């Protein structure tokens, strides 16, 4: 969906923090803040909730533990009980290394997959860039406009709060498949006349 955004870029994270606070206090809706590096506490200042990706990691981990122990146990006791040097068919201590490795493997792979899925990231995915320098040295705050918002007023508000580059952009939200070497064309929804 195409929306209008007011975009302000900041040079210093200290200025950004107070700007985030003021923008939220003024009742504007922050779409997102794009930063070139992780800024600790910014998520809290923006009112984002904690991520639960580590909980997913735990769930994937115990899945790995279960698969490893269950799989080896089933193979050695039920599917093909083999006598290996007279050792027991379910030698738990000997199963620990593989159980541990599979726990770690499933947890890591699962978490990275979940991370990519939640962030909508994969090769070939393209997203709108509000400011190319936001992966270099600027922190870019993007405010979403509504029908009632006054862009000029918002731009002035950002300027007063220390933004150095300010503009208003029409942009498509979300993600789509595309290549970064191709120019981006806005997808517009136009009214189509339907014959009765």
């Amino acid at each position, binding site marked *: 969906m195409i929306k209008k955004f007011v975009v302000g870029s900041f040079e210093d*994270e*200290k200025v950004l*923090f107070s700007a985030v606070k003021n923008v939220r206090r003024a009742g504007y809706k922050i779409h*997102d*803040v*794009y*930063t*070139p*590096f992780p*800024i600790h*506490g*910014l*998520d*809290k200042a923006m009112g*984002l909730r904690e*991520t639960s*990706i*580590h909980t997913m*990691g735990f769930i994937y*981990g115990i899945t790995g533990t279960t698969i490893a122990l269950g799989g*080896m146990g089933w*193979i*050695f006791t039920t*599917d*093909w009980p083999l006598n*290996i040097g007279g050792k027991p068919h379910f*030698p738990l201590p*000997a*199963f620990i*290394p*593989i159980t*541990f*490795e*599979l726990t*770690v*493997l499933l*947890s*890591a*792979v699962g*978490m*990275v997959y979940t*991370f990519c899925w939640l*962030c909508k*990231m*994969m*090769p070939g*995915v*393209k*997203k709108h*860039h509000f400011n*190319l*320098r*936001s*992966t*270099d*040295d600027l922190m870019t705050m993007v405010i979403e406009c509504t029908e009632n918002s006054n862009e000029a007023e918002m731009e002035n508000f950002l300027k007063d709060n220390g933004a150095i580059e300010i503009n208003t952009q029409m942009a498509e939200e979300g*993600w789509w498949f595309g*290549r*970064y*070497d191709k120019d981006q064309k806005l997808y517009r929804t136009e009214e189509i006349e339907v014959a009765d």
Partner: protein
Amino acid sequence: MSLLKYESQLREPLVNGDKNYHQVTEDIIGPCETKPNRLWWIGLSISLALLLFGVYSVYREVTYGIGQWNVNKTVGWGWAITNFVWWIGIGHAGTLISAILLLFGQKWRTGVNRAAEAMTIFAVMCAAMFPVFHVGRVWDAFFLFPYPNSRGPVWPNFNSALLWDVFAVSTYFTVSVLFWYTGLLPDLATLRDRAKKKFGKMFYGLASFGWTGSTKHWQRQESLALVLAGLATPLVLSVHTIVSFDFATSVIPGWHTTIFPPYFVAGAVFSGFAMVQSLLIITRKVLHLEDYITLGHIEAMNKVIVLTGSIVGCAYLSELFVAWYSMNTYEWWAFRQNRVNIFSPYGWAYYGMIFCNVVSPQLFWSRKLRRNVLFTFFMAVLVNVGMWFERFVIFVTSIYRDYLPSSWTTYYSPTIWEIGFFLGTFGLFFTLYFVFAKFFPVIAVAEIKAILKTSGENYKDKMSDIEEMSTEKFYEEEMEHAH
């Protein structure tokens, strides 16, 4: 929460020079955007030549069989397994730096973790070659993985330390790649957004997965990195522990000891850091990254080298003591006659190992030598030679004389194809490293930016006011920013 970025001036800056965020990008990303120089092409050509020789050596082994190597009764595990353990040991430093130092909050890791992790991945790839081709019929190597098959189904033996190794090494490789790549995404996005040419935009656009730098994504990425570090820490210890189980669970004199896991892990960290040193000393010089990989970084790694080298030295002494104290004739013979006796066939390897791993690193107790780049490079090479000797001593001296004197091997020396295989992995390792250093940022740009305002030299200089401020005033001023 205070927004104050303050670190004592007593701590050495981690980024030298007058830098800002943009300058950091320019310095580190810059070399990826220019054409490679002649030295790079020469280095790559030599590596590729070695790699080709390795490919031919492996071709001989696959076509004509293991007979191309001198491994035989009783030395069934010769250079192949020595090289396997040597490479996998080198592959331990990357995850140690990125995971364990992350958990310990050691900020100096930011300057070296990217290159070290890449080195880890390449070293594990080299390591995995040896057992895969040592199985002989490499086309059947997939039998190692348990999957329902039409051969019975025949399952692998889950009690076997060698199978644990398959799981440990493949898990370690996968997790290292994931850890490395999720950290690389933001920097690839920086490269993508700076790219001028069509190919660069397309390549880095695909490689960066559409990373934007959204706050929510950073939050998830940091959480992911922390949990992956928590998982990778026991993992890195488990890998070399399991490699040592290959030996410790057997009943061969010289191998059957409980000291092996910690001893192998310390040795792995020791050799891994030495390899990181030798690579980074060249990288920082060639790419002019002296401001980011400072003498402080080199000194910190040298401290790890002297610590782990001393642990390894203690392990040598205790296994020697226990061999005598156990009163086991075979065990004591393996040590007294096959290793410590300098006139025995492999006495030279034992004393080479002691000299390179235990004696020479002690010079790093001197601060002046720890901060000497040339000396560090020389020592790093020496340590890696020593660690190769260590593996050679452990494997060959324990098995070249069997319980039965009539089956004693006269002398095991490798054929040209065994040496060629080893040289080939060097070719693979350096080819991959050269390509990595050219097309990817060798330092984690985003992580350097995150610590720049606390640990950058120019920012620390400006903190003199805070250093001299009274506690009351400091509290008053800083609480203004607090929520």
